[in-house]
Structure formats: C-alpha cells, structure tokens
C-alpha cells in the first residue's frame, strides 16, 4: 500500500508539472459581462512593448540612422512593401492598418513563445499569447472584414456591391458566402496555429523536459512569424481586391 501511495504521489507531482490548461480562462466581471483577463493583460503588455519601443526609437530620427532606427525603418519598409504589392498604388492610407495587424499579431505570437508568462501565477487559467484566444483572432478578422468593406464602399460607392454578381449572377450565393468564409478562415487559421503550437510545446515539455522541445520551439517561432505575415498579407489582399476596378 505504501508503494502504491508513493507512486501515486509521484504521478501527482508529474501531473502538477505537466498540467495542460486548455480553454481555462481567468475571468473578470465587468457589469453583466465577462472578459478573459489573461488575454487583456497580455495584450496590454504587447501594446506597451510596441508603443514604448516605437516612441523611444523614432523620437529623434537621424539622417544616418542608428541601429534601432535602421531596424524600425526596415520594418516600415517591409510593411509598405507588403501593402503595396497587395493593394497597389493607393496603399498609403492602409499602411497603419496592415502594419498594426502584422506587428500586433507578430509580437503577440512571439511573446507567447519567448516571454516567461508562466512566472506570473493567475488564480485560474494562465497567461499566454493573446492570439491563442478566439476572441482576439475573431476581433482582428472582423476588423479586416470591416476594413475591406470600407475600402470598397469609399472607393466605388454602392457600385461596390456589383461585384457580387460580377462574372455571372449565378455566383451570387458563393460571393456572399465568401464574405463569411474570409473572416472565419482568417481567425481560425491564426487561432488554431498558435494554440496548436503552444500545446505541442507544452506536451513535449511535459514528456521530455530537455533539449527535445527546442527544435519545436524554433518551429513555433517560425510559424508564428509566418502566421502574422499571412494574416497581414491576406488582409491587404482582401482590401486590394475590393478596391480594384472590374475588368
């Protein structure tokens, strides 16, 4: 019996270490509504990182850029390039939207992989990348939808809705369906990738705590960056698509 107790205790300790918490949230109550506090906290940290670094570096631009300024200029060039290739010549006003999408998602994903969130104990749930919560990704996807509707309507007025019967009116249902599948695929792709990546790392760490998870972690960093790029590129592509003229 003693042996059994011992083994049970060991198992319990292992379980405590390797606890995988999926879909556990730390709730705050605001009025009648609930919010996922862990998402909000991490998103505040991400926003703070972005804003503070940008303010510190871009405060006083030099003609011959310093190292930090050079990096920020490079990122801005990159965002402009993505916007320009997807949207076309009128990309200017969309740079902030595309850039913020890319940066917010990228820094969120990498913060989930690199920042030691687990040091901060929450009473319930755990801190992780904001993008592994469906609320965040759906919020971003809905913003993207709103953005491309706005782009199309402001460019062409009501003629924008002509695209629904564009090749033939037979495609009308499919064209309408597209407006629902676009945000759905955007949000679920990001959500699924980030959640799956974090789960894979956690499970691997619980199985083999040393060395083995490292390649997977690097793979996670890679996919995180790719996901941010994909989200931003697709958003820009949708905006460009709704702005381009019918041929």
């Amino acid at each position, binding site marked *: 019996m003693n042996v059994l107790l011992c083994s049970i205790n060991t198992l319990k300790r292992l379980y405590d270490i390797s606890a995988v918490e999926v879909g556990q949230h730390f709730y705050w109550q605001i009025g009648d509504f609930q919010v996922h506090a862990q998402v*909000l906290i991490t998103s505040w940290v991400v926003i703070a990182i972005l804003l503070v670094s940008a303010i510190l570096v871009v405060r006083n631009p030099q003609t011959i850029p310093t190292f930090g300024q050079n990096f920020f200029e490079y990122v801005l060039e990159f965002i402009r390039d993505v916007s320009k290739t997807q949207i076309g010549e009128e990309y200017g006003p969309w740079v902030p939207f595309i850039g913020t999408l890319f940066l917010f998602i990228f820094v969120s994903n990498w913060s989930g992989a690199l920042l030691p969130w687990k040091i901060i104990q929450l009473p319930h749930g755990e801190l992780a990348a904001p993008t592994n919560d469906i609320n965040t990704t759906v919020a971003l996807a809905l913003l993207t939808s709103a953005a491309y509707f706005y782009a199309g309507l402001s460019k062409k007025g009501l003629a924008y809705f002509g695209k629904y019967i564009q090749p033939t009116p037979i495609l009308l249902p499919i064209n309408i369906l597209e407006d629902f599948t676009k945000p759905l695929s955007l949000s679920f792709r990001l959500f699924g990738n980030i959640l799956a990546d974090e789960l894979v790392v956690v499970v691997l760490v619980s199985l083999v705590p040393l060395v083995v998870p490292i390649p997977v972690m690097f793979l996670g960093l890679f996919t995180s960056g790719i996901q941010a790029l994909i989200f931003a590129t697709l958003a820009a592509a949708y905006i460009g698509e709704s702005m381009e003229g019918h041929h």
Partner: protein
Amino acid sequence: MANMIMASSKCLIPFSTTSPSPTPTPRIIPTLQMSLSKLKFSISKPQQALTLLPSTLKSLSILTATSLAMAPPSLAAEIEKAALFDFNLTLPIIVVEFLFLMVALDKVWFSPLGKFMDERDASIREKLNSVKDTSSEVKQLEEQAAAVIKAARVEISSALNQMKKETQAEVEQKIAEGRKKVEAELQEALANLEKQKEETIKSLDSQIANLSQEIVNKVLPNA
C-alpha cells in the same frame, strides 16, 4: 516590467474571487462534447487517463480508487468546463485596443518615420541630380584652370627669356669689357715692346757706328 507585474497582480487579487467557474463537472474519460451553442473541449489529465484506462488489472483498479480518494479538492475544481470558443466582452475590447494601437502607432511610428524617410529619399535624389548637373560647371572650371596655367606658363617663359637676355647682355658686356681691357693691355705691352725695340735698335745703331769705327780703325791702322 516589474511595475507592470505588480500592477497586474494587484488588480488580479480582488477579481480572483469573482471567477465564475461554472459548476465543476469532473470528467473521467476524455470527451469532446458538441452542443448547439458552444463547443466544449476538455483534455483529461494524464494521470487520469493513465489510471482510468479500461484495464483488467486489479492493482490498477486499486490505484484508481486510491488516487481518486487522494485527489485534493483543488483537482476537482480544476477539471471543469473548458471553453475554447468562449466569446464575450473580450472581443470588442480587443477591437478597441487594436484601433487605439493603430492610431497610436501611426502617430509615433508610421507617419513620422515614413515622412522622414520620404524626405530623405527626396533630398538624396535631389543631391544626386544636382551633382549630375554640375558636370558642365566642372568643365568650365577645368577650362579656366587650364587657361590660368597657360597664362602662367607664358608669363614664366617670357620672364625666363627676358632674364636670359639680360644675363646674356651682361655677360657679353663683361666679356667685351674684359676683351677691351685685355686688348688695351696688349696694346700697351706691344707699344712697350715697340719702344724697347726702337730703343734697342737705337742703342744698337749707336753701337754699330762705334763698332764699325773700331773695325775701320782696326782694319785701317794707318789711317
């Protein structure tokens, strides 16, 4: 960072009690429940998965029983509804945060740095163009320089010639002077010689007369 952690932990404490934690429903087998309104998803803990496998071993069943008995109350609380697709007020808050971030980043990063970069590009292009334009100016300057050098060369050569002439004249003058002097001396010397010659000839003449007298006397003693 430390401040942020402190701040966040401070505000966590009062809220921690309000976590709604819906009715804890301990699940024994990993289940994937799909209801119409919500997708619920729970991952069973490894321990339970291990202990609750449909096993025929008696010892394992004992272990199961004891582990369930030994499980602390917190364990039961943890196994609860796992809400992956749990939409709530977080979504609009994230939308607002994103819009705020977009405006703020545009204010502190995209607009100022973009403008700065564009201006720098423009100024560099302008400078490059102006450099291309000044090639004619450079040519003119080069011609000027060549003209200046030519003039200087002419001046120098003329000065050199003049100097040469002057020195030559001087030298010739000196030579002429020397020659004159030498000639004068020569003349004088020649004159002297002539004089001496005449004198000697004169003296010789007188001696010749004497000698001839003597010779006559000697030859003609009787005379």
